[in-house]
């Protein structure tokens, strides 16, 4: 057992932290978040050059053979600066699905382009009625000639706004909540019949609702075997949850540092407000949430590498449930301890609060993962 990073992993951590420090001051992030795409393509290129976009992929598919631990390191450091680039959607989720389920042709067409930063992906799994259930799929894919015809509505697809290809879960069999009968399709964002309603999200990112109206795709669009996508989806979503957990840890730690700094600086009643014991204890409570979250995030990153599927699922559910609560608490209290200053758009702490709140909700909120944990007992 060992929680320490290797030398190489430490180098990675340093390099991502440096990138965040150089590019993600509060002002720089605010500006970026207001642009059309909501992130920087230059940053994305830089990330590709540094090899980060290839790190989670195995050498077999052309990647650099990193593990979930490398993803954790990157996400945690990016969380510190609330990085906006679509690493989670393109690399962890989209790339993860293709690498896991794709045939050689699909892998060759997509993974190298992702690694070079030339192709962006999004994953459309949620639907208006599904809440957080990955098996609740009403979007249909009907066999037609050589391919399929897709119809349905996908909800809150992060970064569908800029993705070149959207991976869509759709039903090829079974009834609406069956795990069996779900398939994945790779759909070009500009395919006829696909329309998007783009919008901003509370965490300063971009997402879209995607409508599929008789979208025709060839049989080569099918990712993995027909009707058997559910375990693949669950596996990749578990990885994405672990990545989100790591991001939350970084964001919590940064929010705590910023707040701690403020408590030392801000004076009321002739003393730094950090001298008031009630605020000291609140800070300690926040710190303890971040500590436990870090432990859960590390634990889950290591468990993703093991083969025990049941243990993986339960650990991921536990980590998300625990970290979701901690993220919410830390975000809310960080604002509270800043007083009026915490309520402004200009000051950074509110943005941490909003991203932490979103992480709690993304890929299943706290209640959802407690239920999942209990059901997996």
């Amino acid at each position, binding site marked *: 057992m060992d929680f320490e990073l290797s030398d190489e992993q430490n180098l990675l951590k340093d390099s991502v932290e440096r990138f965040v420090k150089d590019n993600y001051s509060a002002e720089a992030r605010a500006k970026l978040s207001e642009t059309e795409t909501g992130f920087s393509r230059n940053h994305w290129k830089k990330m590709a050059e540094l090899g980060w976009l290839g790190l989670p992929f195995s050498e077999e598919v052309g990647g650099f053979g990193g593990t979930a631990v490398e993803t954790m390191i990157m996400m945690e450091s990016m969380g510190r600066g609330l990085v906006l680039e679509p690493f989670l959607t393109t690399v962890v989720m989209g790339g993860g699905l293709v690498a896991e389920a794709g045939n050689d042709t699909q892998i060759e067409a997509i993974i190298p382009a992702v690694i070079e930063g030339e192709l962006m992906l999004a994953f459309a799994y949620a639907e208006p009625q599904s809440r957080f259930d990955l098996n609740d799929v009403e979007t249909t894919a009907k066999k037609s000639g050589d391919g399929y015809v897709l119809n349905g509505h996908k909800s809150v697809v992060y970064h569908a706004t800029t993705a070149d290809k959207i991976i869509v879960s759709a039903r090829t069999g079974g009834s609406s909540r069956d795990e069996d009968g779900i398939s994945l399709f790779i759909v070009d964002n500009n395919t006829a019949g696909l329309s998007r309603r783009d919008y901003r999200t509370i965490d300063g990112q971009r997402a879209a609702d995607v409508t599929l109206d008789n979208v025709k795709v060839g049989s080569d669009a099918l990712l993995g075997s027909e009707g058997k996508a559910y375990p693949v989806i669950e596996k990749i979503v578990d990885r994405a949850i672990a990545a989100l957990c790591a991001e939350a840890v970084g964001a919590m730690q940064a929010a705590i540092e910023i707040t701690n700094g403020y408590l030392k600086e801000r004076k009321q009643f002739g003393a730094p407000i950090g001298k008031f014991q009630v605020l000291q204890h609140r800070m300690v409570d926040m710190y303890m949430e971040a500590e436990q979250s870090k432990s859960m995030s590390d634990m889950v990153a290591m468990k993703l590498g093991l083969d025990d599927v049941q243990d993986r699922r339960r650990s991921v559910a536990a980590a998300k449930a625990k970290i979701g609560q901690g993220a919410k608490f830390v975000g809310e209290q960080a604002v509270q301890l800043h007083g*009026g200053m915490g309520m*402004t758009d200009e000051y950074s702490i509110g943005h941490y609060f909003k991203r932490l709140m979103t992480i709690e909700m993304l890929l299943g909120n706290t209640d959802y993962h407690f239920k999942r944990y209990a059901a997996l007992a």
Partner: protein
Amino acid sequence: MDLSFSKEDLAFRDEVREFLATSLPDDVKERFDRGLHATKEGQVRWQKILNEKGWLAPNWPKEYGGTGWTVTQKYIAAHEFGHASAPIALPFGVSMVGPVIYTFGNQEQKDYYLPRILNSDDWWCQGYSEPGSGSDLASLQTKAVRDGDDYIVNGQKIWTTFAQNADMIFCLVRTDSSVKQQEGISFLLIDMKTPGITVKPIIGLDKEHSLNEVFFEDVRVPVKNRIGEENKGWTYAKFLLGNERNGIARVARSKRQVERLHVIAKTERSGGRPLAEDPDFMNKLNRIEVDLMALEYTELRYLSMMSHGKNLSAEPSVLKIKGTEIQQRLTSLLVESLGMYGAPYEAEQNYEGRNEAQVGPDYGFGPMAEHLYLRAATIYGGSNEIQRNIISKMVLGL
């Protein structure tokens, strides 16, 4: 001890219901129900309707234009307003400066300002907080120096809600720096159009504009705009803060939020069933409802004590703390009820001129804006930490 309503009370309830059903404009109601800030035009329009009915200022003494309602009637009215999503008057004029004026102002001030408040001729804002003086309000630095019949005011206020709409600001200013902080403060009424006043917007984390900085540069304020005595402003300021804490529990609004949650929970789905059948979700809602009931009966008990002439000390701080905690738990649960549709968010100002439908369900428009704004509920009106300090000192003697 008696909780029942008399026949007259029930008749009164019907009158309030009838009035709200026929007089509350749909647009005003809709914004309030969603939890969005009122527009200036809508708020003023509604306040004028209320004033015509004589119901704008239920807490004022009858001689100044109050309603003369009993405690029970006030309770009934608040409940019906909340249920119908009818806004009450903005607090700055009616609940804050109005009572200061009729309690401590001179006849001329009463005659001039009180009718203007009732008629919504002046939109008031509150100039208390400063960059260096928030919780420690008495340390405020904005200076007023006497020059003949005027004060010359220099300094800065911050977090001034809706100063961008305001015609008047009531300000705490320092008129004596040589004495104990609390003994050198005066209370001034200042016309926002006076030369030397600049209002600068502060955009909130909800991306909306309700907060402002207000700068004073050699602003001449007639001495006759001072309330009461020079250097006695702290007494009036504290009186006002006490009133501010009273209204801040917002029990009636929270009851309405509970109703909204029940409606949403019937439509939203969890695990393939209505969210209303999800025991985790409903448990949270039920816990809030019980806490809200405890808050409501605490408020009623305090009101009853006051109506029997008993003096309260820091009890209203209990209402402020518990009321704001409940408000935050409710908006948090509202956002949670939306599932992933809690995430889409654009400031209303970005929607102007656009005609797109709401992303996700219609009831999804509003909860996040209110949730974000109400993070401030535990900060403004004296933060909840400060309220706890007050209770521990004044009630518990610690």
